[in-house]
């Protein structure tokens, strides 16, 4: 069982200071998880946890994960918007832990959007 100790924090700090990238804004991607009541009750928290786990497992520090409100497609929640730097954003819907991990591998790391789960391609202003 894990306990948060000062030693653990020190180790993370040291590793972070050796590799930091996020601080100066040159990130690979930004992922927005929709966290309205509709999203939360449909499983947005599980999706966010799974994505954070995938980032930690693969030691990825240049992906920003953030939260936004309801996107107006309540029946399609949980949803996430993936913005790869320099590409059109992709909105994914009806996500779960397995789907977001596949999106992580294929889209965020691999650069190919997972068409099967995508809602709209490139319409970032519909929410």
């Amino acid at each position, binding site marked *: 069982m894990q306990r948060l100790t000062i030693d653990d924090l020190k180790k993370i700090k040291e590793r972070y*200071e050796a590799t930091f990238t996020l601080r100066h804004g040159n990130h690979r991607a930004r992922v927005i998880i929709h*966290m309205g*009541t509709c999203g939360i*009750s449909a499983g947005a928290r599980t999706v*966010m*946890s799974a994505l*954070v*786990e995938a980032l*930690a497992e693969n030691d990825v520090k240049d992906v920003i994960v953030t*939260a936004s409100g309801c996107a107006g497609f309540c029946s399609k929640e949980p949803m996430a918007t993936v913005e790869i730097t320099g590409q059109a954003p992709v909105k994914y819907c009806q996500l779960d832990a397995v789907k977001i991990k596949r999106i992580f591998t294929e889209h965020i790391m691999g650069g190919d959007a997972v068409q099967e789960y995508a809602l709209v391609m490139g319409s970032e202003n519909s929410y």
Partner: protein
Amino acid sequence: MEDLSLHILDIAENSINAGATKIVIRIAEDPGSDNYSLSVEDNGHGMDGGVLLKAEDPFFTYDGDKNKSKSKKQKKRFGLGIPLLKQAATECGGEFRLDSEPGKGTTLFASFRFGHIDRKPLGNIGATMLSMMCGHPEIRYVLFYDINGGPASGSSFHYGFDSDALKEALGETPVNLPEILLMVRDAINTAVMEGRDQTKTAIKSHNRV
């Protein structure tokens, strides 16, 4: 909403939307007096009397100055978060209160009969903290988790978490690094489990905590 920690996440999202910079969450399990209570207190922009009255109404969403002209978003959307929690509390023989002062902040309080058959379990409160700190790392989150074991157990348990204390220990390292978020999640869930072990509340309530 499956568990109380999801309600907490949902209510805290309201605080975040209200521009809060600090959110204090209190969870108190008191099986001896058959009470389970939680509150979420924020320093956001608050609500005036009219909004406050309507906030407990399903199908009400107030978007404030963001939507001066009653855009399609405001017409289509309806607020469910507060009514859902209010319903969950009152159905379980508990109480619900929403207090707010414009410009000062808002406090939501909900209680349940601890042993009520429909009282939802707390669930993954660690994942709720992870989600909030990941989504909005700039906000200060304080969590108090208390168990009063009651006469049968004779012990109580108190746990506190403050994201600002963690930030201070981290220095320059951001609090929303994936491995830090996972540690926070696991540390909080471990504390909850230890508290229940110590006070034997898990056994007493047939693991429905």
